[in-house]
């Protein structure tokens, strides 16, 4: 099977890092560029992190830097969840001169034309870069086979009562994406991401794998951060938040849906994004009952096969060079 050409747009981010490592390991994609955007932490970190991830994953594609702020409404960051540098304080050296001088909006469009309709975009941060691309090149959707995002929430949010972080960071950007006319817009929302997780037993097993591969330091930092965050909350609070009974990772879950859509329940809906209300800012609204009489504009993941996700995660982790030390 030929490799699927893919642009990754990301604000790494511990779980972004897992997603990129998983996709690189899958061998299913021809990753054409990694585009950094503001989000979990500021662009000054996400571009460095993106570069480090590219090198760690052994990719040769360019890394570009895009928007440093939301289109319109600036929001606070999520350093509390990802550590000050976005990768839970992992220390590393990269040469930032290696960051491409080309902007994501031009790279994405040029790649889209080059691949003649086969290119896919996987966006797991705020959608500012994609929205700018669409504003600058409104015909982009004609050349995109599938646009997949981690974002939105059908019920509970993690940024206010209903807002999901990526979307709440730049709801206007999602609005632009929703009305852009993508042929296929797959939305892996918070609710569905929370159906894919590693059980405590699986996580413990992975944490203790004697690995010597480039992923390991990243993996360990992420695992440690997850364990530490877990201690900050009672099980009751976690349950109220809607957290899974184990170790989640939204971007990793959405990467799994990108690679293996057959393992997710996908349904088409008409989706809107609220940008006027303060209380509901960035809420994704799905017209479950067809009240707006509009054609569906997203394919929403409703649930993910947890066992398949866990098995894939383990397989991908094994696949890095070095593998398990015997």
């Amino acid at each position, binding site marked *: 099977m030929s490799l699927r050409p893919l642009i990754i747009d990301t604000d790494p981010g511990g779980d972004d890092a897992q997603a990129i490592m998983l996709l690189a390991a899958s061998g299913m994609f021809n990753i054409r560029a990694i585009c950094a955007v503001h989000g979990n932490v500021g662009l000054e970190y996400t571009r460095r992190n993106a570069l480090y991830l590219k090198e760690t994953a052994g990719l040769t594609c360019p890394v570009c830097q895009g928007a440093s702020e939301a289109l319109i409404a600036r929001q606070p960051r999520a350093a509390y969840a990802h550590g000050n540098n976005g990768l839970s304080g992992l220390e590393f050296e990269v040469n930032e001169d290696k960051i491409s001088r080309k902007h994501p909006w031009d790279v994405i469009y040029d790649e889209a034309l080059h691949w003649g309709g086969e290119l896919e975009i996987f966006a797991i941060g705020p959608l500012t870069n994609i929205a700018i691309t669409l504003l600058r090149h409104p015909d982009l959707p004609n050349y995109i086979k599938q646009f997949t995002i981690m974002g939105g929430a059908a019920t509970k949010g993690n940024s*206010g009562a209903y807002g999901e972080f990526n979307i709440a960071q730049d709801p206007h950007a999602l609005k632009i994406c929703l009305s852009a006319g993508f042929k296929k817009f797959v939305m892996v929302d918070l609710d569905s991401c929370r159906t894919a997780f590693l059980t405590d037993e699986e996580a413990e097993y992975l944490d203790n794998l004697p690995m010597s591969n480039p992923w390991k330091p990243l993996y360990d930092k992420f695992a440690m951060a997850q364990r530490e965050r877990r201690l900050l909350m009672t099980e009751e*609070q976690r349950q109220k938040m809607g957290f899974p009974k184990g170790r989640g990772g939204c971007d990793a879950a959405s990467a799994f849906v990108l690679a293996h859509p057959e393992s997710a329940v996908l349904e088409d809906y008409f989706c809107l994004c609220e940008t*006027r209300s303060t*209380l*509901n800012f960035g809420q994704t*609204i*799905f017209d479950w*009952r067809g*009240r707006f009489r509009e054609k569906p504009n997203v394919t929403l993941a409703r649930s993910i096969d947890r066992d398949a996700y866990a098995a894939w995660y383990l397989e991908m982790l094994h696949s890095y060079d070095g593998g398990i030390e015997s």
Partner: protein
Amino acid sequence: MSYRIPIIFDTDIGVDDAFALLLAAGNPSIDILGITTVFGNNSVDNCTENALRVCELLDLDVPVAKGARKSLFGEEKDYTLHKNNFVHGEDGLGGKRYMLKDPRKKVEDCDAVDLIARLVRRSDEKVVLVPVGPLTNIAMFLLTYPELKSQIDGIALMGGAAYGGNYLPLAEANIANDPEAAKIVFQSGLKIVMCGLDATEKAMLSKDDREMLRVVGGSIGTFYYDMVKDYVTVSERFDPNRLGPCLHDSVPVAWLINPDIVKTEPCHVEVDIVGQYSKACTVTDVLCRDNKPNAMVAFDLNREEFIKLHLDALKWLNRNQ
């Protein structure tokens, strides 16, 4: 006699409202002090007529007063054109109002807000308000009689949804009919139990349950059986996989009778009145991130026990027949 909870039932009566009234009237632990009507499922004139006739059927002798014709900031709707007619039938009682006797009782001279004030003043105990329609009357009562707020024990209402809606994706019909009134009520500081769609959509009346209405309910049960027929059809068109139509408005009454039947959680609820798509959303923060809880929100209910309460009420009302 054991303690009976004094309530004022505020309603845009409607098919499920009629079930709620049956449940309240037929349960010895509830003391209905009075009924106030409001626009919503139908015009307030029709709703008032319905309330009087259902009272006659249930042999319920309590004052009935007419309330708001329209929302605080909206226009009066023309219900002859309104699509809402189709959920509860053109007469608001599933097209079966003609089967009910002319009421002996007359509507009160005063309006709903003044009746609430009068009943609250007269009551020895603090009163629970049970609104199951738009919250216009309740908001007006709170605005006009602030000194009586301390005499209100709490508000057990049907309305809103933590997640989703029915009128619009994020708006439940009662709140959508008067979002500003709902905002006033939710920020009043009174104890609120919000029975929204999260729980009320589980309050389904199955086919077997409907048969039981006739079996145990005598003439009252037979009327309810007939009244709900068209409501079933609408419900099936809405969602064919559903066990039956939802008795939304009975849920706050059931909670009053037995709080174990309705599972609630303390939440912070604020009504959105500005959103482009989220207007009338009861924004429910289960974590109470930035605010203290101001409402107990219903998320689940025990359907079997819930239905049984209705059948028990029917039996009780038929005890002398």
